[in-house]
């Protein structure tokens, strides 16, 4: 287990990839930064300042590897609320009031940055583990709804509306201007769209709706060249082209109402010279500190959750130093606050885009900041041509993702009581506030646990006991055994987590709950995360001793509920029936149900940064050496998340071969080559080298492996993406499901390829 030496040479070698990845991320960060800042009632440039300061500071001082930092979406509601609160207190009117309010909030942001650093120094990176996951889900959904409430009206060019109020007699359910009022006012705004007197407003609303359409449908188009520019950037580019078209071709003013264009983007010089006057005059008031605490709590929860999720995607399987990251984020927040920016947090969507584009170390974060500076320095005037509703469409999409019905569905499938926790947290957060919401969520969870166990003493007696025992079994080398006693819930999960964190992820772990009377959903979910992490990094993580709990119907927390139930009724689609026929025809075994056992695919480079959900519709020969299946996997996280279903073929080989990836040569590969990926040339086969793109670590072995027969085989057959992990091949054509004809063709291709490879071996022998 000796550490790999990271030399400057390695760093320089990966630098082009990281620059490229940083560039792609900056394309997303630009519109998101502008949009998040505006939804937070801050000047739009604040979002960019946040991303730049965050990127520069955290990339140098942080402790994680492939994360991207910048303005976070969960803080929108808090900042906006605080700005409006201090705007009304300032006694000023209009823009000036908002500005004054923002100056006070900057002070709060700076203070929260200091608190965040202190959390890091006190090693409280485990803070996020003290909250039940359903309560966190409820809080995130509430944040999503707050974002929806704020941005939908602007997207539909009805800025400044107060929504509606609802009252029965004397009982006011919600009033105008509140989040609920705004939410229930959305239909009113939608109806209003069709009757704007000012055509400028109608154009603005159209821009917003088009933006939303781009966000929703863009991931569905899986075209390599279109995907090079991420969806949010199209929302920026298209309106700018549109406005230039009006200006230079039609020679008319832009039809979108000027009040709905992004205003006051300062040029680069004035950002540096005109620092905001941060207003610390409220520092003694309790209201100020409640904002500071809320900012700190939300920022740390969002960052910690993101770091945890991104660590799972890291292709080099490194472990982030959470506390070091917290310190860096705190420092970055202080700096950002003084320059007029927002809280710096680790953001999941941008980080996952970074990983998917080949970012491999912190320099990607640095370059994302660098490119943002470049954009502002070069294009700050062009940015004022972006209509506000289009930017808000990005936020509407974000808000929807946070509060989508899928979240509720998932929580309901875990258990009804989780839904109670979820909705209590959600409603209290919307009606009263974030801190109150999450605290009540914690309290509700506790009460529900007490009711389910019908025992107070189980929790009270054992809360402070060191209930986790971990030891390395001496006899069969290196098994870590973890035994948990009494109960394990969000209250004491940190004890288990502390132990689990001291195990290298490539080891074997057994977690034994047989002496544990109660395990809650938060723990099960976290253990599932550990399980995925260990599998990805070559270890093994097993949870045992829950069988007794499983038979007890009053224990609905366990994940085993999700175990696939065999589908007894034959309810196959037409495609499935044809595949079934094909199986008979070709003498193969057919299984239509979902198969979660996908470890055999995890070694492939293609899946390194992707999460495989399951395979289904599998065709296999008798010894499973050839398998053809539909596969569901996802790449990216959160708003960048795309679930992809594709048909692929897996061929296991008897002999070891070098690891390589082979695909059709194209424009995209040229771009990648520019960014540091290298095509391996095969001597005497320039045609092959021109048409195919071959990639792998062991250049010499690959060159000798691709002999004349193999090259001729590839040259004379259709293009496929062929990948070897050393002992098996992965073959597919497109990232989508294949029809029956295509299945037959790929099956034939795979079989013949296998024969070619095996004949080759025989010849060599």
């Amino acid at each position: 287990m000796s550490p790999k030496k990271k030399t400057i040479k390695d760093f320089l070698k990966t630098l082009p990839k990281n620059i490229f990845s940083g560039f792609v991320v900056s394309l997303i960060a630009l519109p998101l930064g502008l949009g998040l800042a505006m939804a937070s009632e801050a000047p739009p440039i604040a979002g960019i300042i946040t991303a730049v300061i965050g990127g520069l500071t955290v990339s140098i001082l942080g402790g994680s590897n492939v994360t991207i930092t910048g303005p976070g979406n969960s803080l929108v509601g808090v900042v906006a609320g605080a700005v409006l609160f201090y705007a009304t207190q300032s006694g000023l009117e209009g823009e000036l009031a908002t500005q004054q309010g923002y100056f006070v909030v900057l002070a709060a942001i700076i203070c929260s940055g200091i608190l965040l650093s202190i959390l890091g120094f006190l090693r409280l990176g485990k803070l996020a583990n003290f909250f039940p996951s359903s309560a966190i889900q409820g809080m995130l959904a509430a944040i999503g709804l707050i974002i929806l409430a704020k941005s939908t009206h602007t997207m539909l060019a009805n800025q400044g509306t107060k929504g509606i109020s609802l009252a029965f007699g004397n009982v006011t359910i919600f009033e105008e201007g509140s989040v609920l009022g705004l939410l229930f006012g959305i239909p009113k705004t939608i109806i209003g769209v069709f009757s704007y007197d000012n055509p400028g407003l109608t154009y603005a609303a159209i821009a917003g709706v088009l933006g939303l359409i781009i966000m929703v449908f863009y991931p569905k188009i899986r075209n390599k060249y279109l995907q090079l520019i991420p969806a949010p950037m199209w929302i920026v580019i298209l309106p700018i082209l549109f406005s230039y078209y009006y200006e230079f071709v039609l020679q008319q003013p832009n039809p979108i109402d000027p009040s709905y264009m992004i205003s006051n983007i300062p040029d680069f010089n004035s950002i540096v010279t005109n620092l905001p006057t941060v207003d610390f005059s409220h520092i003694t008031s309790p209201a100020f500190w409640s904002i500071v605490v809320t900012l700190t709590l939300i920022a740390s929860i969002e960052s910690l959750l993101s770091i945890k999720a991104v660590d799972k995607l890291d292709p080099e399987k490194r472990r982030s130093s959470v506390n070091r990251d917290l310190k860096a984020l705190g420092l970055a927040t202080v700096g950002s606050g003084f320059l007029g920016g927002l809280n710096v947090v680790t953001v999941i969507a941008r980080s996952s885009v970074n990983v998917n584009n080949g970012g491999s170390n912190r320099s990607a974060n640095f370059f994302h900041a660098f490119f943002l500076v470049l954009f502002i320095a070069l294009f700050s005037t062009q940015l004022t041509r972006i209509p506000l509703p289009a930017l808000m469409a990005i936020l509407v999409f974000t808000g929807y993702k946070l509060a989508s019905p899928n979240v509720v569905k998932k929580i309901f499938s875990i258990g009804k009581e989780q839904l109670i926790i979820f909705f209590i947290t959600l409603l209290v957060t919307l009606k009263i506030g974030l801190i109150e919401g999450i605290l009540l969520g914690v309290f509700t969870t506790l009460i529900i646990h007490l009711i389910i166990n019908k025992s107070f003493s189980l929790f009270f007696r054992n809360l402070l006991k060191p209930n986790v025992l971990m030891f390395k079994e001496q006899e069969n080398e290196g098994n870590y055994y973890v035994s948990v006693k009494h109960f394990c819930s969000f209250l004491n999960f940190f004890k288990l987590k502390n132990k689990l964190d001291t195990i290298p992820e490539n080891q074997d772990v057994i977690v034994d709950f047989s002496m544990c009377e109660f395990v809650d959903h938060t723990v099960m979910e976290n253990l599932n995360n550990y399980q995925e992490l260990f599998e990805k990094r070559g270890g093994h993580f097993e949870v045992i001793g829950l069988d007794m709990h499983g038979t007890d119907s009053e224990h609905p927390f366990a994940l085993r509920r999700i175990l696939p139930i065999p589908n007894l009724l034959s309810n196959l689609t037409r495609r499935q029936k044809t595949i079934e026929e094909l199986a008979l025809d070709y003498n193969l075994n057919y299984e239509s149900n979902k198969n979660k056992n996908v470890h055999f695919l995890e070694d492939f480079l293609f899946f390194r940064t992707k999460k495989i959900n399951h395979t289904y519709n599998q065709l296999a020969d008798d010894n499973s050496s050839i398998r053809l299946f539909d596969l569901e996997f996802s790449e990216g996280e959160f708003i960048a998340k795309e679930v992809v279903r594709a048909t692929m073929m897996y061929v296991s080989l008897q002999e070891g071969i070098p690891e390589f990836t082979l695909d059709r040569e194209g424009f995209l590969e040229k771009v990648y080559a520019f960014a540091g990926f290298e095509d391996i040339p095969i001597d005497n086969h320039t045609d092959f080298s021109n048409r195919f793109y071959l990639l792998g670590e062991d250049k010499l072995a690959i060159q000798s492996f691709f002999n004349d027969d193999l090259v001729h085989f590839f040259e004379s057959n259709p293009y496929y993406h062929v990948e070897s992990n050393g002992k098996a091949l992965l073959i597919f054509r497109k990232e989508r499901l294949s029809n029956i004809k295509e299945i037959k063709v790929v099956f034939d291709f795979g079989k013949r390829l296998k024969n070619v490879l095996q004949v080759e071996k025989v010849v060599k022998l």
Partner: protein
Amino acid sequence: MQQKPFYIIGIGVAFSPNLKANIHEAARFSLLFQAKLILIHVGKKSQEKTQQIEEILKPFITQNLSYELVFKTGDPVDVILSTSKEKNVDLLILGALQRENFVKYYVGSIARKITRKANCSILLMIKPSIERIPCKHIVVNGLQNQKTKQVISSAFYVGHHLDAEKITIVEEIRQQEVAINVDDDKSLRKANIKKERLEMRETNRVKKIVEEIPEDYLKEIVIKTQPIFGKRGYSIGHYAQMVRADLLVMNAPGKITFWDRLFPHDIEHILTELPTDVLIIQ
């Protein structure tokens, strides 16, 4: 070796549902160790009680068990403690409930009170049985302490007499000794190297102790060492429970105050939730 053989074994007798099982266990022990059994009952002497006890002892009397009945009135804790002192009891056997309810714990039950004050070795039995259940696996505490040598050798002495198959010596290493916080890959590697070193050191120390034990006692017993990182006293109980040990051998605690019970440590953890039968060596 300096372990004290058990010449005189005492047992507190109360007329509870467990009476027969308790007496059976104690009598068996006395026979195995060829010791004299002293039955101490807190209460007035009566014909009826004597008869009942002797009835239970009958099968052992035929095997030449030497025993003595003591009846004394007074506070149970004081009576048992003073009698065992008087009679020079080497090992006191007490029946105990596995887990006590909340109030009892903080006030202290009889068995636990005696444990805290006694000057002789004590065996706390949580599941006495009339038929003999073989003692297969003994877990013994090997943490670094001046008493450890004696505890380990006593464990082998007992194990030898009870025909135990396996003795596991558990070295509890405190987390503080590792003194490295795991943040990232680098610190994780450091911590693991440190841990391995500590484990090696502890295993060597225990090995040396085992080497001094008379060979007779080592015969036919599988010896295993197991380092664990965790809270002292608590983790070993947890371990014993997990491996389903039949007996846990611990060293006697120092003086215990009320505060130790509020913030339990070492043996107090074991007393709170007895994982299995516990032998405390004085």
